[in-house]
């Protein structure tokens, strides 16, 4: 089953290179901006989580995801988050589950004229696919995807297209990675330059990953925990 049939929630959003934490943004009254960051990073993980967890088809999952985020401001989704009770990622996933379960119950009630029956969530997991794992995996994919887009934009701004091209040919290669010597010959540069270009790209990419994470975590402690989880 493929879940790659939506382009919504992709990399369109561009954010300042230095972000404040989620809670700082909320307390500064920038709830809309904070929510935009959350949507940019979490739209696809939520969509794919709903498809697996609740067995929704593409359109239903899109609608449900859209409804979840569209109503987030009214439900004060960010304001109700308490960092003392766990990570923001865990909180968001639970909120999605509750939201989807309520929607499911409401639609069942309409169908049955009020005879509501909850389907135990675990029973509707698609066989062999762990919804929580899908959520985590998609979150990582989206995080790196956004950071790669940030890197590309930076390379264009700073005229470092060759740096990005080498990074793309090596680190984003779908097949066998070329050797540094082959890349050097292809671009007409020294092998040490290939090493330096890659080092620059990876350093910037790590910075963008950190900034994206900072924008959706409540503070330094959780940011560090998320970073640790990401690299281990």
């Amino acid at each position, binding site marked *: 089953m493929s879940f*790659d049939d939506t382009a919504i929630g992709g*990399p369109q959003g561009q954010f300042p290179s230095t972000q404040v934490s989620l809670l700082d943004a909320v307390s500064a009254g920038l709830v809309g901006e904070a929510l935009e960051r959350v949507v940019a990073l979490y739209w696809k993980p939520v969509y794919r989580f709903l498809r697996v967890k609740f067995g929704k088809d593409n359109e239903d999952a899109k609608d449900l995801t859209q409804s979840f985020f569209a109503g987030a401001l009214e439900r004060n989704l960010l304001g109700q988050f308490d960092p003392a009770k766990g990570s923001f990622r865990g909180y968001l996933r639970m909120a999605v589950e509750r939201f989807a379960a309520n929607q499911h119950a409401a639609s069942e009630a309409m169908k049955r004229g009020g005879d509501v029956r909850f389907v135990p969530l675990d029973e509707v997991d698609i066989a062999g696919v762990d919804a929580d794992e899908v959520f985590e*995996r998609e979150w*990582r*994919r989206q995080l*790196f*995807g*956004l950071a*790669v*887009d940030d890197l*590309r934009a930076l390379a264009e701004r700073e005229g470092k297209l060759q740096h990005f091209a080498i990074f793309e040919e090596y*680190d*984003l*290669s*779908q097949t066998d990675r070329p050797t540094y010597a082959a890349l050097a010959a292809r671009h007409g540069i020294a092998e040490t330059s290939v*090493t*330096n270009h890659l*080092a620059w790209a*990876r*350093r910037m*990419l*790590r*910075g963008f*990953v*950190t900034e994206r994470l900072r924008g959706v975590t409540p503070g330094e*402690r959780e940011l*560090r925990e998320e*970073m*640790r989880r*990401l*690299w*281990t």
Partner: protein
Amino acid sequence: MDLTDGIVEHLRHAVSSPDLSATHFELESEIGRGGMGVVYAAHDRKLDRRVALKVIDAPIDGEAQLIARLEHPAIVPVYDTGILPDGRAWYAMKLVSGARLDTYLAAAPSVAERLRIFRRVGEAVAFAHTLEAIHRDLKPQNIMVGQFGEVYVMDWGVPAVAGTPAFRAPEGSLDIRSDIYAMGALLQFMLPDGASPALRAIAAKAMQPDSAARYADAAALLADIDRFQEGLAVEAWNEPLWYSLRRFGSRNAVLLWLLAAYASVKFLLFFLKRL
């Protein structure tokens, strides 16, 4: 941009590897992962030797200099420190070959050997405390026993570390007394089944929830261990009479044997004279 699982995995690995191009170190391999960072074996090109290079997520600021000042036989010497281009801190240390304490204890060493190791740890902690450096995360995983029996305490004073649950004092703030708590937890961990109740009492006193009820410092804790090893009553335990007598007997065994022998001879002579 949509990335495949394979590319995401590659990026995670490639991006987390430290960029040491501005240093005289060269990565060899990853040798361990802890709560705050990753330890690599690296080659020091300048001095042509192998080192352990730790990269941590937390900033270490002035702490690195403090760690470097901790020159003690039981503290792994720090050779160099710096900040990676991505902001992470690193420091290079002596590469210790040996076993982590938890692994070492699996070979069931004697109580005397366990106390020897604990003493070395305590001496290192006491020394660091005189320089107002606290460890913050004492636990078996941060202690190495080298191939010649040398003991090293590692991972000193990383500010963002709040301790490991089983070894963490209940109070929020970390100070000398929280290191004493961790030493108590470490001693408890190191004691085998059937260890003396006096030793268990020492560990329990160091782990008192009220920090004021613990030993005042590492030296006081070690002094109680000394008392135990010399057969004296320990400060941590109001021992029962039977234990006092047993301890007295054990401590004065030679004297008691001599007295018994003397009494036997006198007794024998008394009867021989009557014959």
